[in-house]
């Protein structure tokens, strides 16, 4: 005992433990999970700034366009990232989007429900399905990969079967007329800051249509939801007890349980989170298009996971960030839209997506080793 306390004393006296290196601000930044995504998005913007800077990609209209695509992906990517930090996957996100779409459209069009009740109905179904995914994973101990893969097929099949049974088709149009005067639908269907864009248009600062109204009419609802969810998720992860439980559940399930973290409840709530985020995505898309389609959201689960991974989430759980996932979504959204403004054939987009993900995984793996390095 005395030996140790002496060594501490000497350490205190010299004011510095000789075994500790000074850590540079760069090293601190390196320890943040979103670093890769931040670097990636800066590179993407520099690239398109050079290649497509004068094409209208960065006009008000062009910017809102790629932001809208990014934001839509971002909404589900953030929920997927939180679930991944909690140590699980949800492969049923895409199917849930399709299912939520018809949960809104069929009651509203065929059963005469007011639009707002069918929106609430869709969210209630999302909570139920998320709960089911969660309870299956927690109670059976099966990998979430398998459980939600099953749900991917079940939901997509049910969406198709139910829609065809009730409507005889695979699309349910006619929602647009119901949006007006609905007490809830505006949440998912209103462009905000329209006055700003009208003013910018009147000042001739942004492009106008031939009738004098601005080409970009306002900030799309997806972008507002995206920003709000990013902030909310970041607050939860970094600032709340529940956030700490998410990291703990994903980092070490047994350990977390032993110190009293309700791991099961945390995971179930995160599965509900991805299902609800899918439903928000569905609401925005369905109300924007005015119709629900049984194939809507196909493969979105993989894009969401890809964005989360590029954003720094580890596939093994316990590490990642919501801001990272948001940046990951912005990278994908920007490239998928930006590629139209370049001479590059759009066929190459998927190649880029895959390459980006590979680089991200290799990079994240390296970072994790650095973070957990023993001194």
């Amino acid at each position, binding site marked *: 005992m005395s030996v140790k306390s002496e060594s501490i004393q000497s350490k205190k006296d010299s004011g510095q433990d000789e075994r500790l290196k000074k850590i540079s601000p760069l090293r601190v930044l390196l320890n943040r999970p979103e670093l890769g995504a931040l670097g990636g998005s800066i590179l993407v913007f520099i690239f398109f700034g050079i290649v497509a800077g004068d094409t209208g990609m960065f006009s008000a209209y062009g910017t809102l366009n790629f932001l809208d695509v990014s934001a839509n992906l971002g909404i589900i990517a953030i929920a997927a990232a939180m679930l991944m930090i909690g140590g699980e996957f949800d492969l049923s996100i895409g199917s849930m989007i399709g299912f939520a779409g018809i949960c809104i459209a069929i009651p509203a069009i065929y059963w005469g429900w007011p639009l707002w009740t069918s929106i609430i109905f869709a969210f209630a179904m999302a909570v139920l399905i998320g709960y089911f995914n969660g309870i299956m994973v927690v109670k059976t101990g099966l990998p979430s990969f398998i459980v939600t893969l099953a749900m991917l097929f079940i939901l997509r099949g049910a969406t198709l079967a139910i829609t065809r049974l009730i409507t005889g088709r695979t699309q349910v149009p006619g929602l647009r007329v119901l949006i007006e005067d609905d007490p809830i639908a505006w949440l998912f269907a209103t462009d905000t800051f329209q006055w700003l864009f009208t003013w910018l248009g009147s000042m001739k600062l942004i492009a106008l249509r031939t009738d004098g109204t601005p080409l970009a009419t306002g900030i799309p609802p997806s972008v507002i939801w995206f920003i709000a969810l990013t902030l909310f998720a970041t607050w939860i992860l970094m600032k709340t007890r529940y956030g*700490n439980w998410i990291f*703990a559940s994903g980092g070490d399930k047994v*350990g977390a349980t*032993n110190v009293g973290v309700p791991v099961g409840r945390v995971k179930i709530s995160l599965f509900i989170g991805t299902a609800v985020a899918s439903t928000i995505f569905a609401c925005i898309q369905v109300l924007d298009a005015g119709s629900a389609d049984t194939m809507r959201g196909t493969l979105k689960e993989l894009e969401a996971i890809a964005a989360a991974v590029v954003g720094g989430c580890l596939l093994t759980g316990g590490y990642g960030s919501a801001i990272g996932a948001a940046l990951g979504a912005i990278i994908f959204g920007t490239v998928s839209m930006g590629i139209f403004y370049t001479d590059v054939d759009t066929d190459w987009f998927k190649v880029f997506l895959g390459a980006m993900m590979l680089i991200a995984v290799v990079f994240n793996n390296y970072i994790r080793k650095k973070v957990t*390095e*023993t001194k």
Partner: protein
Amino acid sequence: MSDYLVQFNNISKFFGKVIALKDVTMKLKKGEIMCLLGDNGAGKSTLIKTLAGVHKPDEGEIIFEDQKIVFDSPRDALDIGIGTVYQDLALVSLMSVTRNFFMGREPQKGLPFFKTFDIEKANTIAAERMGQIGIDVRDPSQAVGTMSGGERQCLAISRAIYFGAKVLVLDEPTSALGVHQASMVLKYIVKAASQGLAVILITHNVHHAYPVGNSFTVLNRGKSMGTFQKKDISREKLLSMMAGGEELDKLEVELKEMDRIENN
């Protein structure tokens, strides 16, 4: 009030036909370090889990501060002050020191429904507590993965004490550690006991147990071979009891035999 802080009287535990523990008795005073020694399969794990409230004993009683106690869950054991540090330590290496220290019991501040994890307070406490054991955490937000094995063990023990453990149950705290790291952990255990905690140190390493222990309980094939005060027993005697004595004697004979053959 008896001298003992906690008493485990005639604890037995059966799994079907298997007798995992039979009539094991242990008594601890405040400030005492009792080493529970036993070879693999002696029933150490079952006993720990019984102390921690994971298993209910089939026979026997647990008396804590003169009250008879029945644990329905690990939570009950924690609540009355029996803190168990398992071999896996329940630490997440990707999470920071602070986040690990308060995992599951985060201090909160703010209004209802908008409560936040009081990370400043948590950082201060974690750094202070780690400082007390002589671990200079330069940054409480550094990942636990960057700490050495001994430091992690100390963090887990320190956490158990901070959250109100009066009896510390430590499962093989030194088994995965080098000499230097192990001595660091053992020193900390002595310090904790000197502050009035009762410590049950489970180990199969007599060389780690003997210098720090006040008393020794030897477990063999589910049965206690008795509890001995340090003055009554030598290190060698303990070692031979643990391994069942004869086996070591037999080994010695065999080695001699090999020697003889080689010399010929």
